[in-house]
């Protein structure tokens, strides 16, 4: 399917979606955090889309908001879509897990939790993946300060 057809189909599921193709090679769709799980589930199960391969999960700190970017591909049709979700709550950011839809998300979400502090509801085993359990702060956030270990020029 072309990006336009995908956009048309996905857009019929909800009226809160925002699409953009600017400044990116993929079709991007912004999803509200309440709808994240249901939209993702439909992206995978819809028989014209079949986005079964989640190849990249990126945690993001946009300054004001935290969020996650999901890069998806269909192994059958070879089309792509990028799902983006954000939350304005920096104190206690929570999103729904998609690890029940794509198993690979379990580890990737642990990584995002480790570095950005985003908690994932219903995640089977959410804990620090790389850093020790008693590490303070979330290093990949833009406002993270570590006076001991960080070399800033």
């Amino acid at each position: 399917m072309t990006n336009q057809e995908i956009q048309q189909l996905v857009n019929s599921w909800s009226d809160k979606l925002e699409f953009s193709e600017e400044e990116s090679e993929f079709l991007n769709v912004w999803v509200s955090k309440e709808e994240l799980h249901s939209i993702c589930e439909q992206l995978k199960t819809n028989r014209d889309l079949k986005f079964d391969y989640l190849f990249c999960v990126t945690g993001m700190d946009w300054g004001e908001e935290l969020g996650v970017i999901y890069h998806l591909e269909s192994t059958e049709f070879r089309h792509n879509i990028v799902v983006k979700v954000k939350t304005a709550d920096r104190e206690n950011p929570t999103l729904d897990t998609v690890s029940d839809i794509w198993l690979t998300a379990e580890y990737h979400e642990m990584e995002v939790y480790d570095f950005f502090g985003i908690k994932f509801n219903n995640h089977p085993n959410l804990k620090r993946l790389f850093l020790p359990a008693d590490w303070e702060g979330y290093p990949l956030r833009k406002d993270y300060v570590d006076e001991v270990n960080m070399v800033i020029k």
Partner: protein
Amino acid sequence: MTKDQLIKPKLKTEEYFINMGPQHPATHGVLRLILTIDGEIIKNIEPDLGYIHRSIEKMCERDSYQQIVHLTDRMDYLSSHINNEAVCLTVEKALELEVPERVKVIRTIIAELTRIASHCLWWGVMGMDVGALTTYFYAFRDREMINDIFEETCGARLTMNYNIPGGLMFDIHPNFIKRVKEFITHFKTKIPEYDRLLTGNVIFQKRTKGVGVLSKEDAISFGASGPVARGSGVSCDIRKIHPYSAYTQVNFNEVLFTEGDSLARYKVRIQELWESVAIVEQLVDNIPEGDIKVDTKAVIKLPKGEYYQRVETARGELGVYINSTGTKNPYRVKFRSPGFSNLSVINKIAKGSKIGDLVAIMSTIDIVVPDIDR
């Protein structure tokens, strides 16, 4: 206590934990697996990561684009050239630079030699893991020839830094073509030797056949890529699906096996040696003349936007995501490393098997820990 109880004590087993690693020869680096064991049967595996995490992604946010290339060597150090290429391709894509044909061909030849070197090392260590020491020496003998070629051309044997955004750092050495051809002639007689020595060996077959079976659906869902996924019949070769550099000019096959067990993953890599040899053979005689780089500005500033490039390393799909705000440093860089996703299948496929089998499974997943611990 009655006489009966003394003779037949009531046996009771209970689960216990055992650490495999962080210093264990089969983990190929500093990786700790926490195994829950009942007798010798594995009930659960929990990887404990981060022993060598350097937070390369954070370091990238402070570096210029030329500097980032150097950091990527240290992820999957056995695919260092391909990692460099991935970053360079992303930057070139963002700048809309078209590199000369000569650069594309040289990059592809060296990438395939890197793949052969990486698979050689894996083959040697794989044999050693299941108890055949000889393979290590055979594989390193051949791998050494590739490292010598690299050393002559770019001065380094492992972490090469031969790519720069816009092209290559130097031209190839005058001996390069001759020595690559010598290597190919030599290596074509050696792959059958690998097969005779290990592939057909009865003990080896028993250690790997039917061990650690990964289904096709799971392989896709776990985001597995490279030989791990292709051993389960998932067509995922980025060189075929989204060709880059000179892969559009060459004929080669994507190696697929459908069994999904350790032996299938092993066979994929052995077959890939042949395919890599074929690619190098097609290109080495036809390196076009021309420049080795396009000049870029001393300070590279990428236009505002998001850029993503996928390449096929020896371990699978490497993705580079760069988010730029238009300054000389990236706003965010993410490396989607193949090892990270490939490792996540381990609990699924090794559950219920014995500790000895876990060693064979780990070998055929072929993890490089710095790739996981970026």
